[in-house]
């Protein structure tokens, strides 16, 4: 163990976000380094790789302006840690945990390594209480459960931002207990940031936000979610709060991962994304959960914009392989003017069955959800037939199902700006099914 910090001016190469140093004495894997650029700018970095004569450092905050002669690198003898304390509530930070809201940095009470440690599977408590999002399509048919990770799969041009904004403002616990939102925005445009800023301004202190803007350093896009999750773990498992982490947009995260992987000259996998992307995404998503004998919980709602609307694209594919279900948005519904444009057929909350029913939501919830789903699925199938043989060539019963599918979209899925409570959602379902009772048995 070294006892003091070491300083070096032995940078031999700078490549993309990477810095190569020679003749470093006893560096450690994952060690945090502080870098001073020739113009005095302060940066941080992390040791990725080391051998007897060379150390490879990944720089957070862009290597622009660094040189090989005068850049100084200080080794801190510590791994990257996130500062923690109640002062972070109600604040907006950037991807390196610097205040973005023009207020001074809060006084940390402690710090924790940003990578976290895996929850021992036997310590995990199985998720079983629901969170009310205010969207009928989600609450009614793909209920979000505390401790779950449930992504929203969107396409370019769909109102994922509006939905995220509403989720920030409208998510509630059924018992109204303390609830904190951790908002992570990756690669956000300034325009979008203005939009979210207004929302955050109205949220008082029940949030922590990490905003990485589109022109912020790419490496910070990888750091911001880890900082956010470290804060979430503190709030959930030490302060016993229920935390909802909203992460947007994971597509930007994965693109950053690809960019840095390329700079490291790693072997590219499918569509150029690195082979370890599954493990990397899992190291974020798996931090959601509940723990036996601890009160809080971390629930994770990442948004993914599927490139080319393709659900088999590596980003959505690997996300789907790690998360516990998915909420899928549909271009077709959006074009019909349905908001939120949730396509309930491919959407699924795998933990729903544990969080609904008599004790949790309402006794008839499961039955209602099944009936809505079944009849809507039939109706959608019949739309294809209708396109071929025409409405008149169809059985009366089938025409009725077609009407049901339309009504389901316009009365149940569509709700515009209004928030619906769980009871309102279920009542809407009852009403709809009563109206179509002959078919919707």
């Amino acid at each position, binding site marked *: 163990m070294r006892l003091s910090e070491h300083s070096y001016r032995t940078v031999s190469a700078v490549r993309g976000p990477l810095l190569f140093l020679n003749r470093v004495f*006893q*560096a*450690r*894997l*994952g*060690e945090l380094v502080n870098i001073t650029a020739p113009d005095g700018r302060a940066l941080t970095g992390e040791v*990725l*790789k*080391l*051998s*007897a004569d060379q150390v490879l450092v990944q720089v957070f905050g862009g290597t622009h302006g660094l040189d090989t002669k005068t850049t100084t690198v200080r080794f801190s003898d510590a*791994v990257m840690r996130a500062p923690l304390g109640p002062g972070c509530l109600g604040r907006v930070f950037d991807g390196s945990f610097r205040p973005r809201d023009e207020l001074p940095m809060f006084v940390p009470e402690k710090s924790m390594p940003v*990578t*976290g*440690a*895996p*929850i*021992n*599977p*036997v*310590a*995990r408590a*199985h998720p079983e209480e629901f969170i009310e999002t205010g969207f009928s399509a989600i609450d009614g048919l793909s209920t979000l459960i505390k401790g*779950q990770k449930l992504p929203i799969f969107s396409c370019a041009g769909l109102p994922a931002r509006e939905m995220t904004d509403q989720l920030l403002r409208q998510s509630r616990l059924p018992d109204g207990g303390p609830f904190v939102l951790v908002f992570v925005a990756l690669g956000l445009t300034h325009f979008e940031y203005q939009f979210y800023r207004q929302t955050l301004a109205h949220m008082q202190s029940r949030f922590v936000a990490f905003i990485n803007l589109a022109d912020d350093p790419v490496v910070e896009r990888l750091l911001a979610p880890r900082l956010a999750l470290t804060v979430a773990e503190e709030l959930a*498992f030490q302060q016993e709060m229920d935390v909802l982490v909203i992460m947007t947009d994971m597509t930007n995260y994965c693109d950053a991962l690809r960019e840095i992987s390329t700079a490291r000259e790693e*072997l*590219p*996998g*499918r569509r150029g994304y690195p*082979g*370890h992307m*599954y*493990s990397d995404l*899992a*190291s974020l998503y*798996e*931090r959601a*959960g509940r*723990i*036996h004998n601890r009160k809080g919980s971390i629930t994770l709602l990442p948004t993914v914009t599927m490139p080319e609307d393709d659900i*088999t*694209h*590596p980003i959505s*594919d690997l996300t*789907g*392989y*790690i998360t*516990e279900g*998915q909420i899928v948005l549909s271009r077709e519904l959006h074009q019909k003017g349905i908001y939120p444009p949730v396509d309930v*057929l491919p959407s699924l909350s*795998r*933990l729903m069955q544990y969080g609904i029913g008599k004790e949790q939501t309402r006794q008839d919830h499961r039955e209602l959800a099944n009936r809505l*789903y079944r009849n809507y*699925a039939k109706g959608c199938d019949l739309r294809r*037939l209708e396109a*071929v*043989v025409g409405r008149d*060539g*169809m*059985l009366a019963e089938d025409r009725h199902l077609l009407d049901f599918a339309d009504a389901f979209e316009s009365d149940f899925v569509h709700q515009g700006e209004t928030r619906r409570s769980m009871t309102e959602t279920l009542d809407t379902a009852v009403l709809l099914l009563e109206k179509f009772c002959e078919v919707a048995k």
Partner: protein
Amino acid sequence: MDGKVISISGATVRVDLPDLKIGDRVFVGQDRLTGEVVRLEGETATVQVFEENRGLGIGEPVQSAHSPLTVQLGPGLLGGIFDGLQRPLRRLKEIGGDFIASGLAPSALDFEQPWIFRPSSQTGAKLLRGATLGCVREGHLEHLLPLTEEGTLATLTEGEIRLDQPIASLEEGPSVLPWHSWPVRRARPFKRKLSPETPLITGQRCLDFLFPLLKGGVAVVPGGFGTGKTVLEQTIAKFADVDVVVYVGCGERGNEMAGLLDEFAELEDPLTKRPLMERTIIVANTSNMPVAARESSIFTAVTMAEYYRDMGLDVLFLADSLSRWAEALREISAALEEMPGEDGYPTYLGSRLSGFIERAGVVETLGGAVGSLSMILAVSPPGGDFAEPVTQACLRVAGAFYMLDTRLAHRRHFPAINWKQSYSLYGGVAKDHFVGKHPHWTELQARCTDILQREDALREVAEVVGMEGLQDRDRLLMRTAEQIRLDFLCQNSFTDDAYATPDMTIVHIARLIAEHDQILSALDQGKILDELLKEIKDAAL
């Protein structure tokens, strides 16, 4: 003798420590992290570290364990949950807390727990390796304790024992402990392989009836995300008619492992009526646990499975998912800068995989009993596309292929087994077995397949002319096919229907087909389908 760390790149570490062998276990750094030697070059070795190694520095000490990566085998493994290195996760939680820390190494077996030993051999007996000394009772079964080397018994105890006390000694000298360790990457020996003959009843109608598996056989279950691999594996783990189940959560979700533990703690084994957990061993290396330990997890698990097979038991090995194992292999290979093959997987993926799958089978054990090890392996093809190396490599060695279909899953048809593309090479052997009890088995199977096939052709016609345009006979076939699909092939795992015995299965399908034939002959007599169906409906009310 100690060596030193000379370079570090993620979990791949170079050390200068002489006299190592490939596969040797080493302890790396001040925290003594477990690693395995994967490459030797002169005086230096490359080591894959199995634990989180952030904070490791150049120059830290390295020690050899002078043995390969091993697991402990002895009484008390049943009911346990381990990580990919066989560290007991419950114990790890007691000493390390709710989050997994590096550098802790609690032992898999409990050396404090007393067992009652009942010898079945005598002093003076000349015994071969693998011979049975006696047994202890572990849960529902007689746990046979084997001799791990050959010799003449000098002493043999009886009654209460603990695992750290010898139960016997040999005239040749060594004393014999009731446990031993075994290298995970070496298959345990047996006398000879036999061919699988008995069906393994999964309780899934679709599988047992259309694509049966045999004890000692291997099935692969590929499917895109959300197609039901995990639910299927866990349901089979509950109901399969075997003595021991080894379940590996390989690179999958923590919540699923928690769910499995909770559920298995409450459920009972349908055969023995004892807690289900008593016949189960879980190996959990979730997706966020170290990648190298994920790679070793399936070997850790299969070695424990073989150990119970060697007692003459039927063991079922379930892995979810083998793709995550293959990806771990790929990550390790990439870190070693090996030449990549298809999709970046190392070129030895196929041989490594078949070497592993070959550990399944029916064997005559060294002790002379017959034991079986069956495997059901989930595969998660990227993008749900089956033309990828892992699925293809599995297909070459597996005897049954249960293809899960994303379209069926989206319609909530579960288990989403595609009945057209799935197959079982064990069908012939299984049939011989079933026909003895159910003479119509083969005929019904053929009828069922035929109806489902004809439905496809008819559906195409119906898409053009509408159901109205079909003849009564064809509409009847569509109706029966729908019933077979929704009522017979679908089986919701979360209801009482989750499990069906072969008797129930055959009665079920026979009833559907008999009704079909009945209506068909009525149609032949000139009756109208809609009226017939209405009669049936009214009768049901």
